[in-house]
């Protein structure tokens, strides 16, 4: 199977899709209304034009990156990963968790089922925190789809350099409280 979700298709249940989409529709309508009220129709058209250009530029990147994420999801050896990060994996576990976080696809559909599988395989709280922190702050797919295109190479390099130690810091803090997180 393609992962710990077994036969369930990837993605959210239908109801959530419409709810989240509705959030964006309302937000877009409200902010567009506000802009039209302040800057007039010309200002709104200018903003819509810019948003349209952004959409055209980002769409090919998103399509390719989603397929890339699909391959990672299909090829990742979940069982072996859970064994590598199991109890007593020590510093090697931290390193592997950090690496794993970097290559895990950007959406929450992949990372949380993996995290659950890790917990069930006996991975400690600290290793799980290293993994999810690495995924959130250093995850490669999100950098490629969103950050690099929108914010440019210099910014990405600065942010990654400044974030390199975060998973380890989080892991060390997590090790302090790990006893209190019941297993």
């Amino acid at each position, binding site marked *: 199977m393609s992962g710990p979700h077994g036969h369930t298709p990837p993605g959210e249940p239908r109801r959530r899709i419409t709810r989240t989409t509705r959030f*964006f529709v309302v937000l877009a309508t409200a902010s567009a209304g506000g802009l039209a009220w302040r800057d007039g129709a010309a200002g709104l058209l200018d903003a819509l034009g810019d948003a349209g250009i952004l959409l055209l530029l980002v769409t090919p990147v998103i399509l390719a990156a989603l397929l890339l994420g699909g391959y990672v999801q299909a090829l990742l050896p979940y069982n072996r990963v859970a064994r590598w990060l199991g109890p007593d994996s020590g510093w090697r576990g931290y390193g592997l968790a950090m690496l794993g976080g970097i290559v895990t696809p950007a959406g929450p559909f992949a990372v949380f089922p993996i995290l659950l599988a890790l917990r069930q395989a006996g991975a400690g709280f600290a290793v799980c925190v290293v993994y999810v922190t690495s995924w959130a702050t250093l995850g490669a797919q999100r950098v490629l789809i969103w950050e690099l295109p929108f914010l440019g190479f210099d910014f990405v390099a*600065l942010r990654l350099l400044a974030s390199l130690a975060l998973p380890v810091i989080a892991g060390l803090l997590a090790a302090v409280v790990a006893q209190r997180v019941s297993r």
Partner: protein
Amino acid sequence: MSFAIAFVLVVLLLLVLAAVAARRRPSAHREARDAARGHLRNIAPRLPFALVAAECIGRLLPPEIVGAWMGSGTGLSGVLIASVVGAILPGGPMLAFPLAIALLRAGAGPEALIALITAWSLVAINRTLLFELPLLGTRFTGYRLAVCIPLPVIAGGCAGLLLTAAPG
């Protein structure tokens, strides 16, 4: 320009993984396509609205306030404010990153923006409520969030130090 670089990088990685799949497990092609299609169905209807919202919100933000609160000269207080804003920012990356460029154009400093993105990526309220809490439980989620509190400030502070060490 950066869009083209990102596209080329993604396609190169894609070719590598597709080659691995072809050699090791040809059924992975189909699984990858199905997974991608599932995610696309989620993203496609939201993306245009998210981009319009981010663009309009960015233009509505008064540059004087953005500059005064999160500008390059604001140091630690800018980083702290940005961390709080990032932690409460709703919506996925399709709102956060377009909004980040809007803030950058409105005069936010890079170290504040890095704190904002770090806080958003660690907390991401919608994601935490929809996925982490139901799957991993209150204790795990609560302690994980508690452990992550200092991280945005550390990232913003490190970025500030790197910028002073090697300006430009």
